[in-house]
């Protein structure tokens, strides 16, 4: 039994699985629909830079409305802010209150009535404070019942305001050096400047997208492995395969290869949806993304193979694989960082292979990390995958001839 012949056997098993699959119209349709719908739903649930637009906010500008006031500059800057599709991010309402306290009450009730998602109170002495170099506070009130929107608002608003602060400071410095008596608060709202803010400011969806990719993959495998192993056991064809001289490992590896190809295809579909419909960014190399997805599949294959070998039938196997996959979704840093989880849970999270896959994907997609930055994750995935694959190979022989 040569290695070449074992690899050939492997390839034929893979061919058979894929051929069977390609002739079943239902399964082909599901292959495309599943990642598509999954990613679309996530994209619409979580706000991102492409879909958020015309958010109503109230601005209580107590600092005067003439061209010279900073309050006005802020108002103008917010007005000129667009999302990546060029649509205005905010729909501004001018609040005409005369005191901060009154403004606060009015904004609060408008938020509670869902008329606005946030409010800004610009204090009356803002321009004076800046001129004199004293500290001054601009109050930003957000609707915390809508946490994702709150976060978006907070980050955008603080960026706008701090950018303004920088340009004012720059003007100040220039004025001093040049002995000009230029009005230091003549900041013209530059729409072009602010557009750059949004793409560089990842939304919650951008943060989620790598993790969702991993989730799509794991659920695909959670149904795929039971189908390919337990179903064949059920209908009796597994006996036929075992009775031939091909090594049992060729059966397993051939099927894993077929599942890998299907998994990567679905990962690609999900990625395309995330990038082209929802504007998620892949700052790093696509090849690296797919390498990580491949290793992610490899790391789960062994576990799911084990489960499918021991289960009596396909339904049981699928029940167990999905039972494992569900909690893993939440424990692997997809929705929020692991450091935010209870201390006793963190060691468990750090053992799960999905944690490493998600972490590597986030680094590559969000931060543009090169391969050297994800070496620990790669090693963990390879080791985990190998250990379980060996276990699966070993037990498959014994389980199949029980």
């Amino acid at each position, binding site marked *: 039994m040569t290695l070449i012949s074992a690899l050939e056997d492997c390839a034929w098993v893979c061919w058979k699985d894929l051929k069977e699959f390609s002739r079943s119209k239902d399964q082909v349709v599901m292959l495309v629909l599943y990642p598509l719908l999954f990613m679309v739903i996530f994209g619409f649930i979580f706000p991102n830079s492409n879909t958020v637009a015309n958010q109503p906010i109230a601005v209580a500008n107590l600092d005067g409305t003439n061209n010279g006031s900073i309050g006005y500059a802020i108002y103008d800057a917010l007005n000129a802010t667009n999302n990546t599709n060029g649509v205005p991010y905010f729909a501004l309402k001018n609040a005409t209150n005369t005191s901060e306290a009154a403004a606060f009450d009015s904004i609060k009730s408008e938020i509670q009535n869902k008329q606005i998602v946030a409010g800004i109170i610009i204090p009356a002495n803002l321009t004076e404070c800046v001129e004199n170099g004293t500290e001054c506070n601009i109050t930003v009130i957000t609707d915390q019942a809508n946490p994702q929107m709150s976060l978006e608002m907070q980050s955008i608003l603080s960026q706008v305001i701090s950018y303004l602060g920088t340009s004012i400071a720059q003007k100040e410095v220039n004025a001093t050096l040049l002995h000009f008596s230029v009005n230091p608060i003549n900041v013209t709202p530059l729409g072009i400047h602010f557009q750059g803010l949004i793409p560089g400011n990842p939304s919650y969806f951008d943060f989620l997208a790598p993790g969702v990719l991993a989730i799509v993959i794991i659920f695909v495998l959670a149904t795929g492995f039971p189908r390919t192993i337990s179903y064949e056991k*059920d209908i*009796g064809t597994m*006996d036929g395969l*075992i*009775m*031939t*001289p091909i090594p049992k490992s060729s059966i397993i590896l051939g099927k894993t290869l077929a599942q890998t190809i299907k998994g990567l295809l679905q990962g690609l579909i999900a990625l395309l949806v995330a990038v082209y419909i929802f504007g998620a960014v892949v700052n790093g190399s696509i090849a690296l993304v797919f390498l990580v997805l491949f290793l992610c599949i490899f790391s789960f294959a062994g576990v799911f193979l084990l489960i499918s070998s021991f289960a009596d*039938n396909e339904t049981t196997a699928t029940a167990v694989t999905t039972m494992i996959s569900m909690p893993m979704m939440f424990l692997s840093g997809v929705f929020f960082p692991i450091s935010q989880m209870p201390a006793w849970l963190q060691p468990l999270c750090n053992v799960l292979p999905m944690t490493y896959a998600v972490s590597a994907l986030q680094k590559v997609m969000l931060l543009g990390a090169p391969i050297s930055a994800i070496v620990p994750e790669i090693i963990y995935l390879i080791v985990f995958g190998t250990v379980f694959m060996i276990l699966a190979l070993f037990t498959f022989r014994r389980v*199949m001839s029980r």
Partner: protein
Amino acid sequence: MENMVISTRGLTKRFANLVAVDHVSIEVRKGEIFGLLGPNGAGKTTLIRMLCTLARPSEGSATVAGFDIRSEGSKIREHIGLVSEKMIMYAQLTAKENLRLFGRFYHIPQPELDNRVNQLLELVDMEKWADKQIGRFSTGMKQRINVIRALLNEPDILFLDEPTLGLDPQTCSEIRQFLRQINTTHETTLILTTHIMVEADNLCNRIAIIDHGKVAALDTSENLKRMVSGSEMKVIEIDIRNLTNDLASSIDALNCVKTSSRLNETHIRVQAEGEEVFDEIIDAVRNAGGKINSINRLDPTLEDAFLQITGNEVRDLSVAPGSMERPGLRKTTRARSAFS
């Protein structure tokens, strides 16, 4: 002995709380057609699976084609073929694709593989269907492919598990004819399980009667039937116009009657022993007011032999609790097709 292709010693298989195969010791000669006859749940399929190295025995040993089933499984598999009760084929692939696929797994080199596939398809009249997906075939057609698939590697020994279950009479007869043909032309040893008396009687050289995991008798069909007629046992069929369940029970209760079975509305068949069997039966019937149309003494059939040996009726035996052959393996598999 040299011409024994299969030899088992005390072969046993236990599942959680039941003994499916109970210390079976049999020997099968080269070139014979050997039958395993028994009701559902008797252990036939489990025994076959062990001999095919698909299941590991709990106790005992066996050699198939001269190799030990526990340690030389891969050598055994080169020499055997299995026509399983479940179809070993992929519904989405065509007949030819299925055969070629398994041929490749058997490492049959190319020009030879295609030749063999075409020959086999011709043998069962399926050449026209070579490029159609198997999922669309009727049960009979699928079974034909199932059988030739097992012949791809030209096995010395062919195991068949209920090969004609669920097939129409025409196909049954064709398949049996085909099996005889393989047996005579290639000297292939056939081991088949069945609960169809006619099949065991006509096809098999020797028959092992299996019940509850044990071999109750092993002999040629003739000898088994002689077991019935060699004794004082008579097989009598009575046609009673107004046969009722009560009357049937009272016949069964007679001392001379060993077993009885009601065949239909008016016929009852009994095995009875003794000098005055006819008198006793006729008296019992007439006293109860029964009207006898006819009363015949029959040559014992294999079914009678089975009845006597196991004390069970094959026809209406449902699976007794705790005596399932293999958890999860159901006889209705063929009817409830995986390809529907």
